[in-house]
């Protein structure tokens, strides 16, 4: 009978052991089999719930927004025609580029492969900032692959399961990306850090760098993890850190994290 008094203590100790075991596995780049098994059970349920919700939303949207949809359809047809012309022009440029490279004896650049994905689950609580996409190892997605959504960089794949992947958002704690500030006078290089809130900290900007509110921030591509020139956000507030003698800024992310539905993930080696 006495054992029942300590159920909470036993479970808390078990939780501690599971946590240590999980950290040990992650540190060695291995998968935690217990959490992977649980995800394998929960994700199909979330996928079904997501499909049902999407179906219901589309049904009601059809009823309420038919008129607007028709207008949007016409605009999209026009835009599609213009984009097709642009695509033909770009194809011609690509052919020319390839022939010039051959002339210069350069290796042809491997095309980046981006594949579309749906965002099945979203966890936006401060300190969590995680989404789960419906592409995994089976689709060529690996841990460390960047993910972009609509207006800019969303985050990076932290764990790739067979049919789904866990994506850590750029705003999550301890996330960082090399960034460049696209100022009209001069481009400055720094680091954009996530802090578990809805904005990013732009750090390590040289004190003499011309930084202004409204400057766009994009990935610098240093280190090779993230492709260059992916939009990150816009500078909102600037200040000078006397302790480290650098300029810092708050950056409003380009991606609207509250309206995520589809994204692009890079298939990597």
């Amino acid at each position, binding site marked *: 009978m006495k054992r*029942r008094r300590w159920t909470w203590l036993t479970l808390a100790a078990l939780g501690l052991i599971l946590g240590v075991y*999980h950290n040990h596995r992650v540190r060695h780049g291995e998968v935690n089999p217990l959490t992977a098994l649980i995800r394998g059970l929960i994700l199909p349920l*979330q996928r079904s719930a997501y499909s049902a*919700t999407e179906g219901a939303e589309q049904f009601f949207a059809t009823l309420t927004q038919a008129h607007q949809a028709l207008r949007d359809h016409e605009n999209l047809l026009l835009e599609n025609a213009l984009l097709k012309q642009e695509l033909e022009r770009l194809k011609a440029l690509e052919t020319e580029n390839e022939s010039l490279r051959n002339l210069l004896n350069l290796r042809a650049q491997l095309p980046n492969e981006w594949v579309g994905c749906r965002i*099945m689950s979203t966890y*936006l*609580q401060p*300190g969590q900032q*995680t989404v789960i996409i419906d592409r995994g190892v089976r689709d060529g997605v690996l841990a460390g692959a960047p993910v972009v959504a609509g207006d800019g960089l969303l985050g990076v794949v932290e764990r790739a399961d067979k049919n789904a992947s866990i994506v850590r958002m750029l705003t999550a*704690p301890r996330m960082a990306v090399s960034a460049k500030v696209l100022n009209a006078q001069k481009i400055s290089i720094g680091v954009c850090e996530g802090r578990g809130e809805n904005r990013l900290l732009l750090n390590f900007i040289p004190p003499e760098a011309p930084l202004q509110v409204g400057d766009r921030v994009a990935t610098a591509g240093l280190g090779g993890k993230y492709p260059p020139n992916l939009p990150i956000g816009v500078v909102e507030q600037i200040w000078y850190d006397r302790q480290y003698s650098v300029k810092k800024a708050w950056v409003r992310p380009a991606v609207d994290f509250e309206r995520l539905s589809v994204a692009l993930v890079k298939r990597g080696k």
Partner: protein
Amino acid sequence: MSISQLHYRYDRVQPHWFTRLLLSGGWGRVARWVLLVVVAAVAQGVWANRLRIGMATPDFPLIVLACLAILTNPNTAAWAGFLTGLLHASMLEQTVGSLIISRTLAATVVAYLPLLLSRQHWLSVVPAVIALTLLAQGILYLAAPAVAGSAFWQGTLWSMVYNIGLAIPSCWLIQRIVPPELDEESFLWNN
């Protein structure tokens, strides 16, 4: 036959502890609350963000956990907290130990609230939700401190407000699935 001889015969024919556990009964009730916890974990990823109002998002696992803690006993609450933390941590793949421990301890503490409040009262779930949210997130913050503490607590408080709004209808619904235990049964150690 003497008492010692009767004891001897009883111990010889007593079933294995696992058999006794399986035949102990109450598994239907266990299956129900496990199902509730799993549904809450699924709903949190799919619907919580869609139901966002400003800075407030619901936390379905904590709502269900608060209702279970107040309707059942501390042992069941501890197990429910453990499962809630484990499912949530598995989806996030981070702070596994912290999430499990925070939910387990918070649910156990809140399960003792019926000593002060009547679990039959329809408003009793509100202090349970408040206490559980603050305790669980507080222990989580101590175990895995967030980089931006103000944003963490701001999100927690808004989430708590949202949870209070959903607490009463959720508790009403959960009572239909997991009926409340009688007060005299909850805290007996041989239960």
